[in-house]
């Protein structure tokens, strides 16, 4: 069977009508020629014709042989079955619509979920040789830590390990493209940053060596998206100037569209180290690099460990090492990974349930098609042909379901992308691509086998004569046990999902219940960045804090206003060592910088001593307020029971580019602990210092309003504009929104799995309904007889309902057993809830039983209203 043979045969499929006509012509010509010759030999016209036909032989057999010869029989059969399948489905539109809908739902949800799994976990990063991309850290006993400028420069000199090594420091800058001042995010990077990614600008050039040296002219590279939205994709953008924080930057390049558009950052500029930053004390850099070709991760790690040993004299933290991690792994956290796998498992379960429903429907339909099959078998169709035909019909269903499913997946992804984007790494591109289509094809194939095999085997089975002799009505549900088993399976799978969802929802409720330690209602927050050009000195910044709070408190509807660095629940930027007198061991604390209004605005009570006051300013004794957690820690570890009045040394970050320096401070009070990092994380040890003594450029405004905080936004913007028209406000959020965002990691999987669980329950209920409705319609006669001999409607109702309940209970116990088996999977995502929480599991069980009985009620009620007279008369 060579290629030519295959091709001509396949082509013949499409030229079928043509070839048939050609053959017809040949036969005619042949017969004519034979006839002529016979005439010439002296036969009569009638004799000549019959002689010609006799010599030719059976025309129909020859044609059949010809057809067999020229084409692929099974393919022709397939095409015929396909047409037939479409016809059969068109004759039963209700069945077709329901099946296609079920399959579309299952396949669509799976395709969408796979797109997410693929983008986040499977696909290699969208950069060349991504396995060579690494993150480099200092490793502390507590985890990974950023490094210092001088150590970074030592690393950068290791050109035998790294082909490129770049810092990556997020920054915000005020710009005013198109009028209004806006704050945009960017990144300060080394000049070889884009070599790490191996990304070349689409327009212009990358940074040149030396552009990160002091005195270099300021240049900037923009993201494709920013170029499109703010410069309308103007190709003449190069060498134009972009104002960032009041300083003109020459635009030298535009990045290609893609991954970098999904990042917060819209601009990249070289990080120029100042003299003050050249130290080994300030840990602020998180470098990313590209390993030299041929250098494995292990080799890189080994060489970095050797380097660490060489640098031991100059590095302060003797117990810290150097660590090299694959870049890809750092992009996806454990929680995200687990959530995604969990959701994928849940959605696969939904598909299984949808398949079970389709199988059940097909089985029910098979009962009524038995006769059709028997007739075809009687006419000579082999069992294999019948199975092939039924499977092909199923294929039609699956393909239509898949097409609808892909459309649904596209819709889902478009709808969900904005919602999930912030939780996914910037390299993740959600959408329907070839890989998703390939996955869908695979899913369709398994669906085809799952939904097609059983019904086609069952329907094509059975004795011919028996089927043909049976009257339609009495051919009752001989598949009943299989169909009931399928429903039980559906219920079990749903129970598994519902239990998981119930546990997650309970966790979420527990998480939301956690006292954040601050007021959440009626609080509006926003952030500002004071540009160094406009606020060059600490005094100018302190002046700004004072003016802005006074101005904001004058806005009608505003009760309190405060300035702070960082907000509750979003983490504290600074971790510093606090040194107690006479204690050699420092305590690592989180350092928050706040103004006198902060505690009052957020309702954080002062427990002992006093809070930060207006009197704590430059020139007076540096003041520190500690939280209760830190006070407890000091009392426990250092027996310091009355911390107020104690002098402690604290490393305090400087203003602008000034590095941190140790400051001799006095503890002036203790406040109740606020949740600094997230509702699920333990309370941290926090020290507060007045902004007036340690001013910062990047600060937040916290405003407490009398009525809805959202209503005050416009007035607050106007007030800020009055003080500094060039100062853009960013991240304007209510405290409620801040809280919601801090629980996003938990809410997203909870709602996704909750939605899938609800869907699963619905599908299982549908399946139950289908089986009972079918049973009732098949047993009408039996029910009629029972009622005729004295059964009441009530008896019939309870008979059907108890049959439903028995299925539900078996499914429930199987499902709960599965839940017990899978506790380990869920445990890590739960918060303060046991994976076997009885209340949550009981709620799940009750929910499933209720929804199941609801589905059973309709057919049960129908059965109870069977009129014995009518039924028995129907029977004739």
């Amino acid at each position: 069977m060579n290629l030519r043979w295959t091709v001509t045969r396949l082509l013949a499929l499409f030229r079928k009508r043509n070839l048939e006509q050609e053959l017809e012509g040949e036969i005619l010509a042949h017969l004519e020629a034979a006839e002529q010759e016979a005439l010439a030999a002296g036969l009569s016209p009638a004799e000549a014709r019959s002689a010609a036909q006799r010599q030719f032989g059976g025309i129909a057999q020859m044609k059949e042989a010809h057809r067999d010869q020229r084409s692929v029989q099974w393919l022709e059969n397939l095409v015929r079955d396909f047409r037939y399948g479409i016809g059969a489905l068109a004759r039963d539109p209700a069945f077709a619509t329901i099946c296609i809908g079920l399959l579309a739902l299952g396949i669509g949800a799976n395709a969408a979920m796979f797109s997410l799994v693929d983008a986040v976990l499977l696909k290699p990063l969208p950069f060349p040789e991504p396995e060579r991309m690494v993150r480099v850290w200092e490793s502390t006993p507590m985890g990974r830590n950023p490094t210092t400028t001088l150590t970074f420069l030592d690393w950068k000199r290791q050109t035998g390990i790294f082909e490129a090594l770049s810092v990556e420091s997020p920054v915000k800058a005020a710009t005013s493209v198109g009028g209004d001042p806006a704050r945009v995010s960017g990144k300060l990077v080394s000049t070889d940053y884009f070599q790490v990614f191996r990304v070349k600008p689409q327009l212009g050039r990358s940074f040149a060596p030396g552009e990160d040296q002091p005195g270099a002219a300021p240049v900037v590279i923009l993201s494709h998206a920013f170029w499109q939205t703010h410069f309308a994709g103007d190709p003449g953008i190069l060498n134009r100037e972009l104002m960032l924080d009041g300083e003109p930057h020459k635009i030298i390049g535009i990045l290609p569209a893609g991954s970098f558009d999904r990042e917060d950052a819209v601009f990249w500029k070289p990080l120029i180290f100042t003299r003050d930053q050249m130290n080994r004390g300030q840990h602020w850099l998180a470098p990313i690099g590209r390993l030299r070709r041929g250098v494995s991760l292990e080799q890189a790690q080994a060489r970095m460990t050797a380097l660490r040993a060489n640098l031991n004299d100059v590095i302060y933290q003797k117990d810290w090492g150097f660590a090299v991690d694959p870049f890809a792994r750092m992009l996806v956290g454990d929680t995200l990974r687990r959530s995604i796998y969990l959701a994928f498992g849940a959605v696969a379960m939904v598909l299984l349930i949808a398949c079970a429903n389709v199988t059940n429907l097909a089985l029910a339909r098979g009962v009524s098609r038995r006769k059709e099959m028997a007739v075809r078998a009687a006419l000579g169709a082999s069992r294999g042909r019948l199975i092939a035909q039924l499977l092909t019909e199923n294929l039609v269903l699956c393909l239509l379901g898949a097409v609808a499913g892909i459309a649904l997946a596209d819709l889902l992804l478009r709808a969900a992308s904005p919602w999930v984007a912030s939780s996914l790494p910037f390299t993740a591109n959600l959408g329907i691509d070839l890989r998703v289509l390939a996955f869908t094809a695979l899913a369709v194939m398994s669906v085809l086998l799952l939904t097609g095999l059983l019904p086609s085997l069952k329907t094509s089975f059975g004795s011919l004569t028996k089927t043909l002799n049976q009257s339609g009505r009495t051919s009752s549900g001989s598949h009943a046990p299989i169909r009931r088993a399928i429903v039980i399976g559906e219920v079990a799978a749903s129970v598994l999902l519902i239990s998981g969802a119930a546990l997650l929802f309970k966790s979420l409720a527990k998480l939301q219940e956690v006292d954040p330690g601050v007021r959440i209602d009626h609080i509006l927050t926003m952030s500002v960045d004071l540009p160094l050009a406009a606020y060059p000195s600490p005094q100018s910044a302190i002046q700004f804090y004072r003016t802005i709070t006074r101005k904001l408190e004058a806005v009608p509807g505003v009760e309190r206003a405060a300035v702070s660095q960082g907000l509750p629940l979003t983490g504290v930027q600074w971790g510093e060592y606090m040194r107690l007198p006479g204690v050699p061991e420092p305590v690592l604390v989180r350092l928050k910088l706040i103004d006198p209004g902060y505690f009052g605005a957020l309702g954080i009570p002062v427990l002992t001593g006093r809070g930060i006051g207006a009197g704590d300013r430059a020139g007076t004794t540096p003041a520190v307020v500690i939280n209760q957690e830190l006070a407890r820690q000091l009392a426990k570890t250092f027996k310091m029971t009355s911390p107020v009045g104690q002098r402690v040394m604290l490393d305090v970050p400087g203003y602008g580019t000034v590095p941190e320096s140790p400051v001799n401070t006095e503890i002036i009070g203790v406040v109740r602990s606020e949740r600094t990092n997230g509702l699920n994380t333990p309370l941290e040890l926090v020290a507060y210092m007045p902004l007036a003594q340690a001013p910062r450029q990047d600060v937040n405004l916290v405003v407490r309003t009398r009525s809805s905080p959202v209503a005050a936004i416009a007035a607050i913007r106007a007030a800020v504009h009055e003080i500094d028209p060039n100062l853009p406000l960013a991240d304007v959020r209510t405290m409620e929104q801040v809280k919601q965002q801090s629980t996003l990691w938990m809410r997203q999987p909870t709602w996704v799995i909750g939605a899938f669980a609800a869907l699963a329950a619905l599908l299982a209920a549908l399946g139950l309904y289908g089986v009972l409705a079918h049973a009732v319609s098949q047993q009408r006669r039996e029910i009629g007889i029972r009622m005729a001999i004295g059964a009441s409607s009530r008896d019939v109702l309870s008979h059907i309902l108890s049959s439903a309940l028995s299925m539900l209970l078996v499914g429930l116990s199987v499902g709960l057993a599965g839940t017990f088996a899978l506790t380990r999977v869920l445990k890590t995502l739960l918060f303060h809830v046991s994976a076997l929480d009885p209340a949550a599991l009981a709620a799940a069980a009750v929910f499933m039983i209720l929804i199941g009985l609801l589905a059973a009620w309709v057919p049960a009620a129908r059965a109870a209203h069977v009129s014995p007279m009518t039924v028995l008369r129907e029977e004739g």
Partner: protein
Amino acid sequence: MAAANLSNIKADVPYGTLDLLILKTLDTLGPLHGYRIARRIEQVAENLLRLNQGSIYPALMRLEQQGWIRTEWGVSETKRKVKVYSLTRAGAKQLGIEVANWERATALVARFLEAKA
């Protein structure tokens, strides 16, 4: 019926030889249409062969699929548009192989029949 007149018995086309007969016909006479091929085979066989003339068409299709013959459109004696078949180079080569096979097979059978106990 104990004995039969051998000359009156017509045999079916020996299994697998129809291809050989067609190829040989085209090789000897050059391009022909279907009816002529069938007639030629009958004529050469005189009265020894019982051929359903129609059965050559599936065979022609098979040979064409193998690339051993090719078709062109021509006109028959009855002025009808018909397919005219001719041998391809591959067909000529195949004919050689088939002839050799046939000769080997008949020689083998002949030796068995001649062999004495």
